[in-house]
């Protein structure tokens, strides 16, 4: 195994073009596990840690540009207001030591359905900035996941950053594991309210071959909120609407039985998390509405 250590982004792209089988490594919290367990023996390992740009983030007008290697700890500490769903998801990643090293780029590169960042990115709406010597492009998150541990990257491309829409409303993230910390998701759920566009977006983890959105559930809820004038009147969402939304989220799952849980449990749990996170985000939305009305 050859170890490549590009000093700059350009060098990294050139190296990746020359050695498309090279596996990029940053925090190493995923790649090193695979190597240590002998699950993977890449021809080339490409260390991206000399490229400082990857651990930086910029908060823009509408979006946050998050470097691929920004550790989860930094997201939790610095981007809680802009990326609340991702910050909550970051909290659930492994242990403090791992959160100090791992970043979203690794989750995206591995593209495991169990990656904790995915449901939050799907719900918030994100674009993955990838680049090769041929040029740069942005892949919408909805088109990024292509199969079990497969993503939309070309062999010569590297993930540079993620562009995530700044939260314009409440966001939530829930994850089920069979222990109260440091656990891989049995299943996970992300929900974001987007009051500006009067839409909701969802993300489901570990309950299908890839991370997925519950699109039918979103469409149902968007219509129900619209028809009932909920965005304007700020009423409590009726239990029947919440239940229908939860059922549609369960129906969006295509899970398997494995050592971490049964398919039937995953469908059930996603429904419970969908209902609860809808309640939490909607209560929060109503709270901010009341607060702004009070101020007016």
């Amino acid at each position, binding site marked *: 195994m050859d170890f490549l250590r590009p000093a700059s982004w350009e060098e990294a792209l050139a190296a990746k073009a020359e050695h498309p089988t090279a596996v990029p490594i940053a925090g190493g919290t995923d790649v090193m596990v695979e190597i240590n367990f002998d699950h993977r023996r890449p021809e080339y390992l490409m260390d991206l840690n000399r490229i400082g740009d990857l651990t930086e983030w910029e908060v823009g007008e509408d979006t946050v540009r998050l470097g691929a290697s920004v550790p989860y700890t930094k997201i939790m500490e610095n981007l809680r207001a802009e990326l609340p769903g991702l910050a*909550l998801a970051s909290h659930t990643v492994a242990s403090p030591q791992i959160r100090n090293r791992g970043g979203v780029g690794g989750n995206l590169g591995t593209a495991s359905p169990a990656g904790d960042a995915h449901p939050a990115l799907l719900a918030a709406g994100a674009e993955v900035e990838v680049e090769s010597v041929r040029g740069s492009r942005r892949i919408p998150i909805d088109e990024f996941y292509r199969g079990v541990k497969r993503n939309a990257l070309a062999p010569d491309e590297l993930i540079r950053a993620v562009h995530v829409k700044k939260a314009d409303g409440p966001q939530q993230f829930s994850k*089920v594991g*069979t222990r109260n910390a440091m656990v891989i998701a049995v299943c996970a759920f992300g929900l974001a309210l987007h009051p500006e566009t009067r839409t909701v977006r969802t993300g489901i983890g570990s309950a299908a071959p890839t991370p997925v959105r519950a699109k039918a559930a979103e469409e149902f809820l968007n219509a129900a909120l619209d028809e009932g004038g909920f965005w304007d009147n700020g009423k409590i969402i009726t239990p029947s609407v919440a239940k229908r939304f939860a059922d549609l989220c369960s129906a969006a799952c295509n899970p398997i039985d494995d050592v971490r849980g049964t398919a039937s449990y995953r469908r059930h749990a996603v429904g419970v998390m969908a209902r609860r996170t809808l309640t939490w985000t909607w209560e929060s939305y109503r709270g901010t509405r009341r607060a702004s009305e009070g101020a007016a």
Partner: protein
Amino acid sequence: MPANGAPTKITQGTRTKGGIGESTLRPDGTLKVTGEFAYSSDMWHEDMLWGQILRSTVAHAEIVSIDTSEALALPGVYAVMTYDDLPTDVRNYGLEIQDTPVLAHGKVRHHGEPVAIVAADHPETARRAAAKIKVDYRELPVVTDEASATAPDAILVHENRDDHHAAHVPHPNIVHRQPIVRGDVEAARGRADVIVEGEYTFGMQDQAFLGPESGLAVPEEDGGVHLYIATQWLHSDLRQIAPVLGLPEEKVRMTLAGVGGAFGGREDLSMQIHACLLALRTGKPVKIVYNRFESFFGHVHRHPAKLYYEHGATKDGKLTHMKCRIVLDGGAYASASPAVVGNASSLSVGPYVVDNVDIEAIALYTNNPPCGAMRGFGAVQACFAYEAQMDKLAKRLGLDPVEFRQLNAMEQGTVMPTGQPVDSPAPVAELLRRVKAMPMPPERQWESSEGADVRQLPGGLSNTTHGEGVVRGVGYAVGIKNVGFSEGFDDYSTARVRMEVVGGEPVATVHTAMAEVGQGGVTVHAQIARTELGVTRVTIHPADTQVGSAGSTSASRQTYVTGGAVKNACELVREKVLEIGRRKFGSYHPAWATAELLLEGGKVVTDGGEVLADLADVLGEEAVEVEEEWRHRPTEPFDLRTGQGNGHVQYSFAAHRAVVEVDTELGLVKVIELACAQDVGKALNPLSVVGQIQGGTTQGLGVAVMEEIVVDPKTAKVKNPSFTDYLIPTILDTPTIPVDVLELADEHAPYGLRGIGEAPTLSSTPAVLAAIRDATGLELDRTPVRPEHLTGTA
């Protein structure tokens, strides 16, 4: 010192600091928490090679061929060995039955069985070489449970058995069977107003010690080998290793290396023989370290079990009878299965008075992973079942579950189902009273001014509930565990104690072969020496085989048995020291001849407190040394038909109250508090006692809500050999554990102490299960309980 040897000064004696009963700190504690402690995996030797084991990828197969040529051709490889390369005719080992091949011979019987070993100059080279060994398997059907193991046409895991259990078992795939019958169950059933039946399942738990199996074998000039090893019993290892190597035991020297936990998982051999074989073959030191994945295959686990129970009781709440059948899955090799059967059967009634019993316990041979010793050893599985039965009975009778247990609780004088009277305190009802009397943790602790504190809720930081669906439940359990090796085993220990003056100060050296696996024996031995010999400075000699056997660090026995041996040796040293004193100074003070003399604060004092001499003056240039074996009272085997016999030497009791909060919609559990009350006889080191109780309690919690090795029933392959998917409790899963320590002396034991390490592991699990049942109203007849069991989505 004056030439005539007269004492130089007479002062008041002071009690020796750091003796028994004090919470002296562990000598290895700071090193361990700061990462400075040298564990067995940290050892290094100049010019050493790395050993690697090739393990079977299938559970049951004939080995058609093994081709090692490509592995041998790899540069850096020094040796590749298979069964055919073993040096003598002794090619099996085992704790009780020598049924385990050092390397597979013609057949593999479980997933991960060692097939070949490699030594190379780099661990990665060794791994790659092992991967190049070609093994051609012809797969065989697997037996995985009682039905498949005992079917008339069942394939035999071991053909042509000739072990000492073979003659009395009903089927060759049963390792050992122990019935216990007493009283008249049929007549008693007629008197019962209620009868409660249950079928329970206990999952396969792993010891999950953090220091993986590792050791270093160094060839010696005399043709022997020196093995530095993390184990639980050096001399038991030695007895099994030497014959395979074709060496007399004196040519196999063993020194204990730093042990990173054991919990029973180091009673059986792991890489010991493999490292020695490679060292002797290559003439170079060989180190072997398992990684976590391999560790899951490298040691035995706790027996999974099926338990069938029937209890009867009168309407005023008295137990009439108990009938049970306990089926333990021993996996492919015997390991400690026979002794686990003995424990499961003899302790299957629990700490209750039941005069009419019909008990049967068996261990199976299957193609599942081998199972053997783990903290609680057969008593754990039984406790899970009989405590569930107690709750069911109490419910049927409309009685409080604690009161119902107290009504039937055993006490000193109660006769066990084996016919053995309990001849020391058995404060079962009192322990239950104490845990029940503890204050309850406040409700809804997650509520704060800033919203829900998810760390206090089921799901924790995974943020699954802010209080929705959360229901509290409370449950109680109590258990009984035997202390020490039972059933007639010669359970002795040896201690060598030396006393001499170093730098003008009397110093005691304690040398035993006791494996310090974290239990704190090294702390306790120093405390005993201080108490008995009145010295401040005690050196604990490294444990090795240059001294006699200390027996195993298991069965809650080391403080009792090796502690007893150290105490005994110290007493003999004290006698010799006093003899020297009488010889030197007897003429100066009549008390030397007439008074009861003690060693305290570095001096010889009378029982009235008068100081007769400094120990330094008594000893002068002389050193006093004693090595002596020490035994607890003998036990007897259980009768093979009736189970009668004085099989156990001492019992240990603990009770728990569990308070849990369950997210009933998601099936997630947060254990809020696990209160424990335990009788320890005498707390030699109160801090260590509480530590043991909290640790045992947590291990019991683990198997209640998360810990399970999952084996595929079709292939007998292990599905989760990693800490990613074999979950053990984190600090967020570990509740507050208030501990109430009772000290009722057992007059038969040194200082009145009681072995304590295992009892808290027993009652913790059923208490948590009872609390979850209380919260959910579900029956829950298996452990660990998983979210799908609580949500109807299994």
